[in-house]
Structures are given as C-alpha cells and as structure tokens.
C-alpha cells in the first residue's frame, strides 16, 4: 500500500503542539498501513521507545519503509491507533490500589469497543503488547464487567473456563502428544482388549 493511500486516523490538529507534528507510518501483519501522530504514539510505551530509538527525521518517516508490527492485524491496529489519537496528550493513569480497581469507560472507548469478543480479545493482546496502559485498563474492565452478578457456573460458561475433568483430559492429551510411545501402548492395549485378552501383561 502506498503512503498516499494509507488510512489516516482522525487527528485533532489543535491538540498537537507544533514541534510534535510528525506522523509515523506503521504496517500491520496483513500489510495495512497507518499514519499516527507522534503525540498519539506516546500512549504506547513500546512504540514510543521504538521511535525514539530509531531517531527518524520528517524525511525518514516519509521515505523509509513503514514500521512493521508483525503480530497485530490491520483491523485491531486500526482500533488501537484510533484510541491513541483520541486520547493523545492524556496522562498515563496510576493505580490507587482500590479494591476493586476503579476505571470509568468513556463513551468514546465504549463505542470503540462495541465489537465482538474475538476482536476485543485481539485488542487486549495488542494493548498488552504495545504497553498502552489505559487502553488495557478499559478493555480489561469491559471483560471484567462480564462477571457482574454471575454464579460460578455462569462464570465458567462466560469465560470458557474448563472444569477439573476437562483440565485433566487436556493434560492427558498433551502428555500423549508429547510421548508417541504412550499412544502406541494405549493402542496396543485397546487391540488386545478387542482380541479378548483380560490382561495387558
């Protein structure tokens, strides 16, 4: 995708200080390109460190290849950068130790996260990977809200939590997958049972 055709996230020009008016280009793992303001990038500790280390000039940003973000797809990265642009310049929040932790989900964030749970899952992964503290906060808060008023049985269904029996079965399956001999022994055992043997030995 050319730079000219890259999707640009809505930018509030007035909120950007003159000296910071530089846009970096990023590319998702499915080759979608995004132009993101320097101030918005500051919401992500990972990207902020990365661009600082690169030390790009305005010319570098336009002429060098877009910075690849290998493990986030375009649909998710679009949400991430929309969020960063909307919240650019805001202070990174500090946990006050409340029980439970208190975070309000702003209207913009609520609309941004009006998405299916699969995409929400990817958004949390991206916020964690890019170390965007407040995006991680609001997205995790949304997941936590799913637990409200639920019984343990309902929680199990909502969060896809395996029972002890399912955990045991998964553990056995993993062990067998790691040890082909175990599967052979079991198959031999089944074969002998079919042949009418009472004992394996």
């Amino acid at each position: 995708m050319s730079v000219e055709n890259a999707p640009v996230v809505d930018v509030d020009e007035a909120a950007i200080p003159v000296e910071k008016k530089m846009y970096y280009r990023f590319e998702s793992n499915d080759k979608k390109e995004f132009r993101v303001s320097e101030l918005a990038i500051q919401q992500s500790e990972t990207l902020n460190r990365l661009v600082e280390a690169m030390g790009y000039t305005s010319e570098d940003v336009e002429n060098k290849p877009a910075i690849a973000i290998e493990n986030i797809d375009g649909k998710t990265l679009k949400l991430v950068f929309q969020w960063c642009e909307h919240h650019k310049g805001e202070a990174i929040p500090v946990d006050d130790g409340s029980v439970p932790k208190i975070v309000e989900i702003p209207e913009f964030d609520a609309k941004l996260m009006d998405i299916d749970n699969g995409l929400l899952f990817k958004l949390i992964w991206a916020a964690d990977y890019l170390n965007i503290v407040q995006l991680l906060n609001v997205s995790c808060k949304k997941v936590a809200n799913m637990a409200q008023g639920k019984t343990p049985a309902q929680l199990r269904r909502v969060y896809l939590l395996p029972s002890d029996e399912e955990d045991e079965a998964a553990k056995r399956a993993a062990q067998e997958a790691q040890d082909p001999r175990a599967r052979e022994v079991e198959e031999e055992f089944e074969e002998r049972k079919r042949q009418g043997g009472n004992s394996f030995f």
Partner: protein
Amino acid sequence: MSSLALVPFTFSLLKLPFIALQNVADYLNPYEIYHFSRISKKTNILAKVFSKKATRIYLISPFCVLIDYQEKGDWSIEPNIEPGPDSYKVDRKNHQPIYAYFSKKPASEALRVLERVVDVFKCSIIYLQLNTRSSRLRRQDLTSYFDWFTVNPSEVPYVYLKCKHGADVQCFIENYKKPSDELDLIVWGERGRSWPLNRELLELPDNLETNLFKKVKIISYKPANLNLYNIFSSPVIDSVEHQLPDSYLNTFLKNWQSGLTNPNWKSVCISVPRQTNLINILDGITATYRDPRTVKRQINVDKESFWIFGGIDIENHDGSATATVQWKKYKMENEDSEVPNELIEEYERNQESGEVQHVEQVLQGIVEQLLASSTFSMYIW
C-alpha cells in the same frame, strides 16, 4: 438491536497474556474473585495469584465472614435465613457490600467460607467477634468455632466477646485455646428497665484461668466481680466497671496485698464512670506518697511505653512486690514532661496534713459530669 447481541457471549479469559489477566482480575470485586476460585483447581490457584491480599478477615457472630481492606472497604459474606441461591449486592454508596448464601448448617458453612476466604485472599490474620446474646448462635456453634481456631494455623490477634452470663465466659475460657494479643470482654445484662446496667451477679466457678491473652479489656455493666479479673493471667488488664463502689476497689487492693489476686499482672487500669474518692479506696492500707518532681518511673506494658511521676506506693504482704497507684490521666510521654500542678499540690497537701487525698476538679457542665471517668491505675513492680 445492539450489534453486541449478535456476537458470541463467551470470552477466552485464560488465553489472555498474564498482565492482561491480572488487569481483568483487578476489576473483579472480592465476590467475583471468590466465585472464580470455586470453579476449578486451576481457577482456585489463579484466584490466589490475582486476588488483592486482605488486611484482615473477621469472623463475626453469628455467621458472618468479613474481608477487610481497611480504608478500601469491607466485604461481608453471611447466610440468609430463607433458602435461596447465592447472591450479592455491591452498592457501596448506600450499603456495605454483602454476599448472601443459604445453608442448613450455617456455623459449619461459615467456617468453610472462612477457610476459603483465608486461602484465596492470602490473609491468615483473623479477628474474632462473638456475641453470645445472638439467638441464632448456639453453644455448640460457639464450641465448633473455638475448636476450629484451636487447630487452624491462622493468627488471631484480637478476640471480642460480648456475653451476659458467667456460663458464656466459662464456655469461652474452657474451649478457646488460641493465643491472642488482646481480648475485649463485654459483660451485658438482660434487657430490662435499667438496661444495659443490671443487678444480676456474674456467677463464675473458682477454677477458671487462662494465660492466652497479652492484654484483656473488660467492660462490665453488671455488679463488679473481681474474680472475673483473676481468671486472666495477663500482664495488662484494662477495664470499665459501671457498678464498682470505692469499697470494692479497696477490697481489691487488700486482696492484692494478701496475694489473693493473679500474680501475673503488671498493669491494672479500672475506669469508673463517676468520681471516686481515694480516701475510701485506700482506707486501711499503708501507702507512701512519692514526690512527682523527683520520683519518675518508666512503664513498659503492651508495646506501650510511658512515664508516671510520683504516685502512691503500696506493698504486698511479704514485701516482694510494690504497686504504684495513680490516675491514668497522668501518664507522661517522657521523663522531661512537665509535672502536672495537681500532682504536686496533692503530694504537698499529703506531706503537710498526712492525709491521702485525691482532688478532682469541680465539673461545671452536665456533659463534663457525664464524661467524668476516673481511671484507677495500678502498676506492679
């Protein structure tokens, strides 16, 4: 229709990265964490990893378990009287959060809840608050609690026991076996015209004794029974006696002199919510007034250190121990604190006339008179 109505309802929580999972857990309230811990062995382990450590846990009679985060709030879990599914209310603006469940055996279920909560919220400091006047708490429930504490490794720094009969005190002393820093024992009367004051005597057997508590506080609304004090082999005894005549305090001192009181006491402070007369209290007792300007002694009791200036010394029958009697309000912060004029005047008056006298300031207002409380203090050397 919201677009969310069409999306899958489920979320693969355990596939989140660790930090995100911790973040989700931070937004779960203690009841949701508690639910989470009960789903499987794995979620139980995760709940313990992710839960915020409680400051302390309370077991409050009859069957309430309370998770305490101090200024961050309390979360109580207690049984409903009526059958019904588990439920909880978290409306912190108007009420304390409460989780309700139903059990036909609420005492044993409360102990199971207590065990889970101690485990999940990583806090083995339990405060015990029992009221034997609760009609729902049977004697066998009480003993099951005491048995649980005897075998459970949790630390119990504080026990609060509110009771009305000597039999309740006896049951507690005979069955509770966990060492604790402090016991607060409140002795109430039956509801009546002068409630909570009560004329009924507290009847106790002679052989009761415990050395489990470093400090005992007694608040009694019944006629004083100084045998109750003798039960406790604790260095520090603090009390408020609502029905304690000066003559009884006089007997108390004479008993101490004769070796009839508990020999392990180091400090006994008895507050009487009225003005007392020291002349009556020391009647027939040989006492030596100490000059508060020159005799300054440091007292170290129950993690507290302070000074007393002067005071009245009395000796026991064989001269092996001295008790200094004074009023608690004259506790001094350090050796160089200013000597109160009242103490000097009292001392000089005694030197001139030879009389033992305690002068209380004349109280002007009704409120001041109501608040008048003389704390008779005895420090034993």
